[in-house]
C-alpha cells in the first residue's frame, strides 16, 4: 500500500500486530508507520479494531504477535506505565477521568511519572518536594488553560460538561509530556462548535511538537485534520494514504465510507 506517502522521520513503527479475543480476530497483521509531527488518522467502521489497536499500543492488552518501535527504541508493550514513560499518552473512547477528583487534581495525576517525591519527601516536605509540588500545580493550571477548562479547575471532574471532560482528559494526557498523543474518538458526542474548537486544539497540540494519532468517527473532521489516514476493516488495514486518496480508494468506499462520501 501507499506507505511511500513520504514520512520524513518515523516516530512510531508498528509491525504485524495481531490480537484476538476468543474467536474474534480484532487485529490481523496490522502495520503502520507514523511520522514525527504528523496528525495521523485511524478510521474504520464500528468494531473494526481501532480501540483494540490503541489498547495494544498503550499496553493495556498484550498483542498476540507483532512489535512496535517507538522513537528509536522497542516499545514495552504490555506495561502501560512504561509505555507512558516512553512517551505515548492516550485518552479513552468512554471517558475515564478520576471522577471524584477536581479537574486540577486530574491533571496533577498526569504529572506522576515526571515527578519524584518519595514517601519520605512527601512527609518531610523538604525544599525539593515543595518546589516539585509547586511546579506540578503550575503546569496543571497552564494545561487547563491550554485546553480551555481552567475556569473549572476546582470542580470535580464528574461535574464538568461532556465536552469539558474530553478536553480535561487531553490535558491530563499532555501532562505526561508525550511525544505521541493518542485520542480515541475525542469528538464523539460533541456538537458542531465543540468539534470546531477541538479541531483547533488538536492543531495547536501538533504545532507544539506533539504527534497526534486520532481515532475518529467524524469523517469530515478526520479528512480535514489529518495528514495521513489508515483505514481498518474487520481488524485489517485496508488503506493508508493522504485523506484525498483514501476517500477515493474503492476498497475503502466499499468497506465503510460509501454512504458518507458518495
Amino acid at each position, binding site marked *: 500500500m501507499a506507505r511511500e506517502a513520504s514520512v520524513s522521520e518515523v516516530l512510531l513503527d508498528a509491525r504485524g500486530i495481531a490480537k484476538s479475543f476468543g474467536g474474534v480476530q480484532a487485529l490481523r497483521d496490522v502495520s503502520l508507520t507514523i511520522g514525527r509531527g504528523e496528525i495521523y488518522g485511524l478510521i474504520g467502521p464500528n468494531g473494526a479494531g481501532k480501540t483494540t489497536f490503541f489498547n495494544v499500543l498503550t499496553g493495556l492488552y498484550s498483542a498476540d504477535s507483532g512489535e512496535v518501535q517507538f522513537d528509536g527504541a522497542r516499545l514495552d508493550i504490555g506495561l502501560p506505565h512504561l509505555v507512558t514513560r516512553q512517551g505515548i499518552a492516550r485518552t479513552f473512547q468512554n471517558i475515564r477521568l478520576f471522577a471524584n477528583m477536581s479537574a486540577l487534581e486530574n491533571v496533577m495525576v498526569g504529572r506522576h511519572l515526571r515527578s519524584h517525591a518519595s514517601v519520605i519527601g512527601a512527609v518531610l516536605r523538604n525544599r525539593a518536594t515543595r518546589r516539585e509540588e509547586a511546579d506540578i500545580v503550575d503546569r496543571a493550571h497552564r494545561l487547563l488553560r491550554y485546553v480551555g477548562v481552567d475556569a473549572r479547575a*476546582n470542580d470535580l471532574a464528574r461535574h464538568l460538561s461532556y465536552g469539558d471532560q474530553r478536553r480535561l482528559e487531553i490535558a491530563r494526557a499532555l501532562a505526561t509530556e508525550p511525544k505521541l498523543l493518542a485520542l480515541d474518538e475525542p469528538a464523539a458526542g460533541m456538537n458542531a462548535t465543540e468539534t470546531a474548537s477541538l479541531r483547533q486544539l488538536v492543531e495547536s497540540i501538533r504545532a507544539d511538537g506533539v504527534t497526534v494519532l486520532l481515532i475518529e468517527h467524524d469523517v469530515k473532521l478526520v479528512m480535514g485534520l489529518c495528514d495521513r489516514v489508515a483505514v481498518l476493516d474487520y481488524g485489517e488495514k485496508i488503506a493508508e494514504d493522504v485523506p484525498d486518496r483514501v476517500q477515493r480508494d474503492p476498497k475503502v468506499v466499499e468497506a465503510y465510507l460509501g454512504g458518507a462520501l458518495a
Partner: protein
Amino acid sequence: MTTLEGKRRDPRVALAGTLLLAVALALAPFAVGAGAGIAWVRVIDFALLYIMLALGLNIVVGFAGLLDLGYIAFYAVGAYLYALLSSPHLAGAFPSLAPGLHWPIWAILPLGALVAGAFGVILGAPTLRLRGDYLAIVTLGFGEIIRIFMNNLNRPVNLTNGPQGITQIDPIGIGGVSFGRTLDVFGIGLPSVYLYYYLFLGATLLVVFVSIRLEDSRIGRAWVAIREDEIAAKACGINTRNIKLLAFAMGASFGGVAGGLFAGFQQFVSPESFTLMESVMVLCMVVLGGMGHIPGVIFGGILLTLLPEALRYGAGPVQTALFGKVLVPPESLRMLLFGLALILVMLYRPAGLWPSAIRRREFAGAGNSPENGAGSERE
C-alpha cells in the same frame, strides 16, 4: 463553589482554635479522670490506639480503595514483636538469651513499623489483581492465618506461647521513666494511664500528620487515582503495582506501631486480641467515619471505641432501672445495637458520618450539583 475543604480562614482564628484544641487535649485525662473515673482514661487510651489503626486502614481502604478485612494482623505483628523483644519470654526457648530481650521502645517501634510494612507487602503482592469481594476474602484469610500462627507457634520452638499469650511484657519506658507506674511531677501524681495517654496522643498526632502529608502528595493522588479508575491511572504512567504495595505497606506500618504501643500498655498479648471482629471494628471506624476523610476517620475511631464502652457500663443499670432486672446481657446488647447503628448509617448516611465534601456529593448523586450550570460558558 470550591470543592477544596481548606477554605481561607483567618490565621488568627486558626491559631486560637489550635491552641484551644491543644489545651483541651492536654487536660483531657484530668477532666475525664476526675469526672468519669480513671477507667475512662484507659478507654481514651484505647481510642487513640484505634484512631491510629483506623488511619492506617484508611490509607488502604479510603485512599487506594482496596478492601482489607485482615488489617488487624499488622496490629498483631507489631504487638508480638514488642512482646518478644521486650519481655523474658524468649529466654524460655533460647536459654542463651536470658534474661530475655529488653529492647528500648525507640528501637522496637520503628522496627515494628518496618516488619509490619513488610507483612503488608507480603499480603499485598498476591492480591494485586483482585478487587472488591475477592480482595476482601483473601485479606480476611490472611488475618486469620496470622492469628492461627500466633495460636500455634508454641511448638516446636515456643515463639508465641500459643493461646496463653505472652506475659510479663515490659511497660514502655522512655529515658528511665517507666510508663507502667505513677509518675510524680512537681507533687502531682500522674497515673500510668495518664502517661500512656500523652504517649499515645503524641503517636496519634504523628500518624495524623503523616496521613495528611501523604494524602496531599503525588503518592496520595496516585492512591486516589487508582481508587477512582485503575486503568486510567495506569495510562497516566502510575506503576499501579508498586503504588498499591506502598499503600499496603504504609497502612500496615501504622498498625505495627499501634500494636507495639498496645503490647507495652497491656503488658500482655494473646491471639484473642486479634480476631476478625477487631478487623471489622477498625473497618467500621473507617467506613462509618467517612472513608478517605481523615477527620471523619478519627471521629469514627473515637465514636466506635467510646460507644461500646458506654453501653457496657450503662446497659445493665439502665435496664435494671427500667424493667427491674437485666433482660439482655450488656455484651449481646452491645453487638445488637452496634449492628443496628451500622445498618442505619449505611441507609441514611452511606458516605459516613463525617465524609469529605467530595464524597458527600459523590453519594448525593449528580442530580444536585448546583454549580453545574455555571461554568460551561466556555466558547
